[in-house]
């Protein structure tokens, strides 16, 4: 019996002058987990979008279970049993889990929707695949990991044979990642083929049956987890050795530049999520904020950068009270901000890469002289940034939209780390970025810190926090519950504190 589920043959796709996919061939067998690896801009998303019909390839064929599927037609892809979970969830927030899952294909009794049947079928599905979920929970009340689970169930209800996951773990907590990997194993044991994209080599080694590496749009090699190590994979991806070691000198902390005193902030649902938090940040140090997502980190960062009003308490920047100031005023005080959600806050999708690289400096010389903007200055500055931060694009004149996920993130990083700021507040700065570029960004952060800049690093990646922080603040329930020294701390201790255990 033929076990080949998906066969991609000689697929090519060119955008303007970029060969995003260059003659790629790939097979996925029934029940096989294929991990796609590659640097930012290597062509991973383009490849899976072609399979799901979101992108129309220039040439090549895609066959599933022996049938060729029409190119560039998502409806056809779905009909042929292909499912894709987007990071941008397509869920109705105010409806229940069961309602969301049946949406578009509701079981009914006469003219009425049969909710009992809906709940039943959701239960059945989640039992079958080991995806535990409460069918009556309201989607907006669920953490991201469970919302993603709803998306997966939605796809499974359509009887998928092939499930595509494009960086599903980028926004998950370590615990949620573990659960997702388990879900992937369950699905594959039921015969579902899976294409899994991630930049985290640990996940690849943990779950993949086969690893396919793309570089510059070409498929450059295949490996199995058994014969691979993180460094052998990195080498294959980048074409050079990655050292995984940072150039970290002893920190020389200076005066306090950011002082937070008993701060209270509400979240979007008007619930108090920063609960009397106090913290001070010194010049020349990297203070890592560790915590399970949803413990007030986002609200804290937004309050400190002027994006969100505070309820009570205060904070001061370089000795000046900064409460109630808008983002522009805080930026002018010397604060750079890498926002957590780059698409929503950090970038304007339809403007050019050049414009986005000076987004919050558009009024400053040399980019403007009074009322008149100096476009030439913008372009030449942007060209330097593109070069320095290795943003993969033929030209800065293209809209930000044309960049791959990781390259968009590099644009935000480039903009925020290249201003003469005193404080850098970075929220998930390396989310979606490939390992080579992470190394570069970490070294840049360390260089800034060595030149006296204070860095507040909020990250869901414990490894990131442990490797570059000088001090670690553990956040739980909207407060800092412990301040630790990275030298004498272990992961389990941090993990317990993050989960709310008292010291």
């Amino acid at each position, binding site marked *: 019996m033929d076990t080949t589920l998906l066969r991609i043959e000689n697929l090519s796709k060119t955008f303007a002058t970029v060969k995003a996919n260059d003659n790629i061939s790939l097979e996925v067998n029934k029940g096989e987990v294929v991990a796609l690896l590659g640097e930012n801009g290597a062509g991973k998303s383009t490849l899976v979008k072609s399979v799901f019909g979101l992108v129309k390839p220039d040439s090549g064929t895609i066959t599933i279970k022996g049938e060729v599927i029409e190119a560039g037609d998502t409806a056809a892809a779905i009909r042929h049993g292909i499912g894709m979970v987007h990071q941008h969830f397509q869920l109705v927030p105010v409806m229940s889990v069961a309602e969301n899952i049946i949406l578009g294909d509701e079981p009914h009794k006469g003219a009425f929707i049969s909710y009992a049947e809906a709940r039943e079928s959701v239960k059945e599905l989640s039992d079958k695949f080991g995806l535990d979920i409460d069918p009556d929970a309201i989607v907006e009340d669920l953490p991201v990991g469970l919302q993603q689970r709803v998306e997966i169930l939605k796809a499974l209800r359509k009887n998928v044979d092939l499930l595509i996951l494009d960086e599903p773990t980028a926004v998950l907590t370590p615990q949620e990642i573990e659960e997702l990997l388990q879900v992937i194993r369950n699905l594959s044991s039921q015969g579902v083929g899976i294409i899994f994209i991630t930049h985290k080599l640990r996940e690849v080694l943990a779950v993949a049956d086969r690893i396919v590496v793309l570089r510059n749009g070409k498929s450059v090699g295949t490996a199995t987890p058994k014969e691979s190590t993180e460094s052998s994979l990195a080498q294959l991806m980048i074409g050079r050795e990655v050292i995984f070691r940072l150039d970290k000198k002893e920190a020389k902390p200076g005066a306090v530049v950011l002082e937070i005193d008993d701060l209270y902030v509400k979240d979007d649902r008007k619930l108090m999520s920063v609960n009397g938090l106090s913290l001070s940040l010194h010049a020349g140090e990297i203070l890592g904020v560790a915590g399970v997502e949803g413990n007030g980190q986002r609200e804290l960062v937004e309050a400190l950068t002027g994006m969100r009003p505070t309820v009570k308490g205060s904070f001061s920047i370089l000795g000046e009270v900064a409460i109630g100031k*808008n983002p522009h005023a805080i930026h002018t005080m010397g604060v750079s901000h890498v926002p957590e959600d780059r698409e929503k806050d950090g970038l304007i999708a339809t403007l050019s890469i050049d414009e986005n690289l000076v987004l919050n400096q558009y009024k400053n010389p040399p980019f403007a002289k009074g009322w008149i903007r100096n476009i030439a200055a913008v372009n030449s500055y942007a060209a330097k940034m593109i070069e320095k931060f290795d943003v993969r694009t033929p030209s800065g004149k293209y809209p930000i939209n044309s960049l791959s996920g990781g390259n968009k993130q590099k644009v935000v990083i480039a903009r925020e780390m290249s201003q003469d700021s005193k404080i850098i507040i970075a929220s998930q700065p390396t989310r979606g970025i490939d390992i080579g570029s992470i190394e570069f960004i970490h070294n840049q952060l360390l260089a800034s810190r060595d030149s006296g800049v204070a860095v507040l690093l909020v990250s869901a990646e414990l490894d990131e926090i442990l490797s570059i922080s000088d001090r670690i603040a553990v956040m739980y329930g909207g407060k800092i519950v412990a301040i630790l020294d990275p030298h004498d701390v272990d992961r389990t201790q941090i993990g317990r504190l993050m989960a709310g255990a008292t010291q």
Partner: protein
Amino acid sequence: MKLKVTRDVLVPIASVLVALAIGAILIASQGHSPMTAYHVLIVKGFQSTAGLQSTLSKAGILIMSGLAITIGLRAGLFNIGAQGQVLSGALAFTYVGYRLHGLPIWIHLPVALVVGAAFGALVGGFAGFLKATRGVHEVISTIMLNSIMAGVVDYLTQNQFRLQGQPNTRTPEILHSARLPHIFGYPSGFLIAVLLAFFVSWVLKKTTTGFEFESVGRNRNAAWYAGISVKKTIVLGMLVSGAIAGFTGAIFSSETTGYFVPAFYSGIGFDGITVALLGRANPKALIPGAIFIGGMRSAQSAIQFEAGVAPDIINLLLALVLFFATAPFLAKLLKSNAKSITTTSGWGS
């Protein structure tokens, strides 16, 4: 980029052709000759001197009202209420135009035009203020302001501003010192409109205000993050949009009507929406569409007399053009707006 330019040019042309084809079928179904009707359209609209003069004069007005809508769209605002702002600007201009005696043209005309623009700005800016402070959607508030302004100008024309001893309700005549001179027999309003289009385009591309408009129009969250005051930009956007609409009313009074009767101005603000959408909210690209519509409008009555076709056919053609040209564009506009507000897309892509 290249692909986009050709698309932006092709879609309007294609929609005009399709509209003309459907129009031809309709004209034929009424027992008239479409060839004759379109022949009259071309001759009266674009070939005869008088026809061309009238076309350009109308085109100038359309360009300006199109610009009023365009600048709003670029800041993410749909100013449905250009009509009310046109009326307000026109009446204010007319009043200054007949009341201030003894001024030389180079003082009287500019002063009256500025007053006209200011009154348009007042009405538009009010809608912007409501949106920025109270969250009232500009489509709702400007539609209501349209009705309010229609009532106000009616009242004023019938009472305080009425020319007494006349059977029909109208204002006194605008003085010569407030009337736009013609240049070699051609309307100078058209020239002003084209210059204004280039100026608006320059402002959008080359100034910080233009960047603020573009940013707020595309992604309010990111604009706020970038240090742009979204509320100020909304008020300013509606203010400028209203000012251009008021200016349009003023120029029309000065160049064409000579005195104020509300009915003279009907449709100007709404044709502006057609022009702006045909030009895909691009200040320079709307010029050809405006000339085309101006030609249709100026040949409207001739079509009836010479080809026997009901003048409504012109309205129908324009509606068809608008329908074909803008349905996809509008859909895209609305979709991208919704996207920027509510969702984020994948980390992988």
